[in-house]
């Protein structure tokens, strides 16, 4: 019996967690930019623009990931990895939801 080595495991892990990782990076970036920008007196409009750009980039990356997951679903073997793939799809969708919720905050809260 041949198992999946650590390299294969890391690949599966990253493919499963890609969505939440994108959300986490996005969240860190917008929080960091608002925090640092506020501390150093950057123009509010610039901070907001950057946050919107980050939101759009994260949203686009997640949508792309969802599209890719759906497209490549058929080629995945039916046992274990397919489940990982499905879990990855759901996680990406949830991450997209979280990004949209953050965008709502951007929309309604003044800087």
């Amino acid at each position, binding site marked *: 019996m041949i198992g*999946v080595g650590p390299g294969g495991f890391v690949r*599966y892990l990253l493919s499963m967690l890609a969505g939440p990782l994108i959300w986490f990076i996005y969240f860190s970036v917008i929080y960091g930019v608002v925090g640092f920008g506020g501390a150093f007196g950057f123009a509010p409009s610039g901070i907001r623009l950057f*946050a919107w750009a980050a939101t759009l980039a994260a949203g686009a990356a997640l949508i792309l990931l969802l599209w890719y997951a759906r497209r490549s679903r058929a080629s995945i073997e039916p046992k274990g990895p397919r489940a990982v793939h499905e879990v990855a799809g759901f*996680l990406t969708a949830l991450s997209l939801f979280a990004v949209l919720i953050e965008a709502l*905050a951007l929309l309604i809260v003044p800087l």
Partner: protein
Amino acid sequence: MSDFPNALPRPKGELAELEAIWKLPRGPGVLTVVNNTYIGLAYVATALLFFVLAGILALLMRLQLAVPDNTLIDQGTYNQFFTMHGTVMMFLFAVPVVEAVGILLLPQMQAARDLPFPRLSAFAFWAYLIGGLFFFGSLFFGLAPDGGWFMYPPLTGTRYSPGDNADFWLVGIGFIEISAIAGAIEIIVGILRTRAPGMTLDKMPVFAWAMLVFAGMILFAFPAVILATFLLELERAFQWPFFIPDKGGDPLLWQHLFWFFGHPEVYIIFLPAAGMVSMIVPAMTGVPLVGYRLVVVALVATAFFSFGLWVHHMFATGIPELSLAFFSAASVAVAVPSGIQVFSWIATIAAGRLRLTVPSLFVLGFLAIFVIGGLTGVMVAMVPFDLQTHDTYFIVAHLHYVLIGGMVFPVFAAIYHWTPILSARPLSERLGRWSFGLLFVGVNVTFFPMHIVGLMGMPRRVYTYPEQMGWDWPNLLSTAGAFAIAAGVLVCLVDLALNFRFTTTGSAGNVWRAGTLEWLPNEVYGTRSIPVVSSREPLWDDANLAEDVRAGRYFLPGASTGGRETLITSPIHADPQYLLQIPGPSWRSLLAAAFTAAFFLLLTVKLVVPAVACGVLAVAMIIAWLWQTDPGANHPPVDIGDDLVLPVYVTGPASHSWWAMVALLLVAASLFIALFFSYLYNWTVSPQVWPAATGQRLPVASWPAASATAFMVGSVAMAFSGQMLARAREYGDWPVRLGIACACLALAAGALIELQGHWQTGLRPAMNSYGALVYAVIAVQCQLVAVAVFMGLYTIARSAAGMLTPVRRATFDNTLLFCHYTVGQGLLGLLIVHGFPRIAG
């Protein structure tokens, strides 16, 4: 031809040999036991002891608050009580109890004979027990911490807390968290590498998923608070001003670090409890969990989102509104995965027919109480509402609904559910119902009025209140409820005393007709043979599975190597890879834990010489313990059945120890990231103490260049040693040892050059927060280098003893990995400390 891996009848004496190998030591030797069942059970019992002790403190506090202007407990003692109550509940009960249940049940759920590092489990348990008892004992000497379970500076700085009380918290909790991390690493490797053949990730019990997520969260969350305690202790002991505003520090840095740990901590506690519920509900309804994959998604998503919520504990600290909005939104978003799990449990109950047993009652109670706590959580996630209720009893009500509903009720459900695995008879249904009734009524009577009294304005952490405030009746009601909770706990303890009869030979068995592997007949060695898993509820799908496993028809029905062993499988498909030889009972892990605990505690009370002596003894015990590991291929490959011949030793990335080392390095990386955050944070709040403003001279570029060169030489020397080890038969052992020695020297030199580089500029750590942070980065790097040098010398010693060969090289591979990481972090540290002030000022 048989469909099973092994044919019957099994050879005579095979079973007796298995029993003899795994039996419990007698007499005082019983303390050396490392089997997961015994350690897990002792762990659970100890956690329950701390639960009761912290509960007694809560009762005393409730007595004090029962009537206005009460003088039963003075203010100072009350401060110690609420600090100890919160600290003990969170650090000595909530996290350890779920870790304990994991150690107890995971091997059975995965049909493994034990976890891969049983002595590490024993070490973690003893460290927790000894450290916890001493920590709690500080209460009897007036030395208990009194700054709240979150220990905010400046209250906990030397100015306002000059005694040893705060040090007990900082050192004690830091130590106990190291024990928790040890347990988490054990759990991660255990789940990923010791599952029964065929138990792919998709067939893994939800509890195992929950524990995997839990342990992963510990790796990333706990380092933040370990760093925070380290920094505050440095500030208290040596006046390094990380949190003192006059010198460019900021008390809010503590809050950021603490809550970066503290909020995930809530989910660290909740997720395993949710995993328990996801196991109990199918067993009680007789149908598989509805939406298994969605529940897994919810567990993983909750873990991620929980790291984006920490600022919602800091809404009232003056953070920019847009930042608050991001955390408010994330706090709402996390409700979605939690909701997925709740709907999954409800759907499973609806799909099957729920038997109203005691575990079911506790699960239903959990659903009701946790949902109420979750809803008030969404309320306090709204910034305007939080600003009104911040630091009031509304928050106390919310957090107790979440923690008791989300964690205590599932743990009680688990006690009643899984007792038949370990006990000759199940617990009493009658007493269990009484316990549930008292707890359910008690929790609501105690904590619901706190919502009201909180909205009426009663602040937290006050030891008394005046009569005219109108807070009398809700407080009296809460006190009455607290005694109902105590009665509920007492009934459960009486039930355990009357009915729990521990056995490894004749347990009550699968009384609930559950479908997962922990309900297989288990003896002291685990299951007789290791089954092939083809579904999520194997016992439901194969009626004869228990009998076939007991008869020894499946894999590894005996002790192929003549010692303790378990099957290591691949992390995704769970294909058998090799046979792991597991170490047996030993005094070493117990003594190592005792001396480590003594080192920390003696250091706390500033008895430096005895502390150092205990530290040396602890290191000696750890060396003695490790010396017996890494046995090499001391046995030819063994046939475990089905003509499957497995090696008994592997090294490198295939080895379980390599995975543990990677997990440890993730902890180190998390700690370093938290330190980098601290550096950036203090720079944003106090740029006036950074070199650009103060004119502080930076070391000339040749210093960091020399340090970086030394680090890289260390890495190259280790890589050279690896090459030489592979050719040791050709060139002998001396190039290997020489390479490791050179690497040790180079690493030490790199750290010392960096230290000297800053020292000669006149920068001192006590000058301001910039100096403190620069030396903190160096101190953390020096710690890593010290461990790397220790590992290097240990590896040389093994080489000299003839225990390092081109094949037997797991020790070397781990040292290599650690050294490379140390160099990587060192280079990054240099880049930050020297590059950042030059670029940003």
